[in-house]
């Protein structure tokens, strides 16, 4: 069984990871939308970047975020030995 101190360190790490993911999530969606007018002046593989972010870029960011989150969470679980039985 883990000590109280270990558990709270574990939860601290999980919480920080969650906050980081949510900040990046907000930047990729709301942030990109707010500056979409500016981004549209840039063209990437034929796409106006502002529209591209809303239609694809933010979605791809979401999935990358979840892949990284899952990897990190697994690593944190293993580090503290709290993987479920």
């Amino acid at each position, binding site marked *: 069984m883990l000590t109280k101190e270990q558990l709270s360190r574990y939860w601290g790490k999980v919480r920080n990871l969650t906050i980081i993911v949510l900040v990046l999530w907000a930047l990729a969606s709301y942030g990109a939308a707010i500056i979409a007018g500016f981004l549209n002046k840039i063209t990437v593989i034929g796409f106006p970047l502002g*529209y591209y972010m809303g239609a694809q870029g933010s*979605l791809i960011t979401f999935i990358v975020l979840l892949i990284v989150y899952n990897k990190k969470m697994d690593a944190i679980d293993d580090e503290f030995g709290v993987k479920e039985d």
Partner: protein
Amino acid sequence: MERESFASRLRKVYAIYTGGLLLFLIVLGIAEQLGLPATYIGYAFVFGTILVYATIGIISRTGQAAEYYVAGRRVPSVFNGMATAADWMSAASFISMAGALYHQGYNGLAFIMGWTGGYVLLAVLIAPYLRKFGQYTIPDFLEARYGGKLVRLVGVIAAIIVSFAYLIAQVTGAGIIMSRIIGIPFEAAVFFGLLGILVCSFLGGMKAVTWTQVAQYIVLIIAYMIPVFAISYKQTGIPFPQLAYGQVLQSIETKLASIKEDPKEQEVRQIWKRKAEEIDQKIKALPASWEEGKRALEEKLNTLPADDPERAKIEKALKEYPKSPEEAKAKWSEDKKRAEDMSKPPKSYVAPPADVKGMVNFLALTFCLMVGTAGLPHVLMRFYTTPTIREARTSAGWALFFILLLYITAPSYAALSRNEVLTNLVGKAFSELPAWVAKWGSAGLIKIQDLNGDGVIQFSEIIIHPDAVVLATPEIAGLPYVISAFIAAGGFAAALSTADGLLITMSNAISHDLYYKIINPNISPSTRVKIGKALLLVIALIAAYIASFRLGIIVDIVAWAFSIAASSFFPALVLGIWDKRMNKQGAIAGMVVGLVVALTYIIGNRFYGLEIYGIKAIAAGIFGIPANFVVALVVSRITPPPNKETQEFVDSLKYPKGEVAHIKAED
């Protein structure tokens, strides 16, 4: 070990299934070339797929509670991801979303970002912790965390409000597709569609729903992709529209800019403006103008000789004429709005809202759709079905991936269709309209009229129904009918899979949460399953009965469901997991206030002209969500903290290892 062999067996089964599906498509394609009539191809797709779903449903029949409620908790993450994606993507996502993007340009992207971004919230804030809790329903969690039957009851009521309207919309969608493809009246088609829904869920509950949803996902994603790949190849020479439509967007922008300046287009826009004014006069003169219009039609009919071909036209107009001054007001207001829209110069397709108010509304809508997604009970329930917490996390990722495939494709559908209209329709003579225009015109999905009488099609003379974008694409791309029938089967699969997820959520809410947990806790698990099945049947019949009236308000209610879920469930779940100090009083007060605020704004906006900063009813959650959070936090801080057991319970949710404290596992 056993788990792995189960997963590999599943992979094999679904690989064979996918191969069989493609073979079926090819065989019917060949049969069409050999002269098989279109109606039979339609039948083959609808009944062929229903037969497959029914087979899965029968194989998965069960009387066991754990299998009936949570598919035995052995759904591997990839398959749970696919099932969640099918559960989530409704008839509207499949058929109407691309059309909304076609019409709204950048503004429509709120749906694309909102309905995917919600899965990030779900995956990091709720899903793994709900899986650790490991019971059956969302009200289960609310009661365990906050204690008492009242909070369960509030949860049950919110779940039923949210799910029922949504269910009716799916039944309606299934009915529309059914009536189109096999050519029977809508009222009868609804009950046919119902049959399709029930074969998936009645015998096997969540277990059967899960495995049919996987099969339905495969049908719907292939059906969505084929036509758009073909039309992309036709327009750009690259079969991957997702990569290729950048250039298409640029060509749209150039053409729209010239349409803005074109004198003929301006002339047509002036005609629309006058039309809008005329309709406005008519609305102001109600109810006299309604009687006058009716009398004029009747008089005209009486003066015409019996064999005049004009008669049929007027008879039709009379039949469609509003039945009452109230109905006239609603219909004419709609006409007026459309005329006003058509009178405006076309907006840029890729530019975001130019003013602050527009941007705030866009962000508010995106936010409500995201939070609502993470608060919908039928989606949340799916995360109880995975074998482990790790798999609950990965399955949220897989769900997002499978949803993404369709949502990344939808904007390319929209752009390619718009380009097709601007290139091959605008500027052409009315005498040389393509064949697909005539076909979908008679179905009422496309309307082109020579308003200024110059014999040439102007952009402002084309009205396209949102559903036409997906439905007409195969013909625009010159594909055989077999693809159109396949699209219909895909839309049908999308409607069925969502309907089943909702149906099972509601029947569980009543049989498990209300009857077993509140009214009569002494019944055996197998009786509970029997009651669940009976309720499933009853709810489905009620939904089909209501759907057969085709009430216009259903579409609105579905849109509101997100804000309602976002303002009720989401804060209670997130605070329940992340705020140890949150207590019963806070959670209930928050849910009730959030729900009341959201509903007040929705009703006020829809019926009484209430509007704050231009926010639409669909984004009412922008008031309800913060209201819920603030009230919950304040009330919880001025009332006693939750007891020690509850705090231990919250702690035990955080760590994957170990038992869940406080409540004993059952069954």
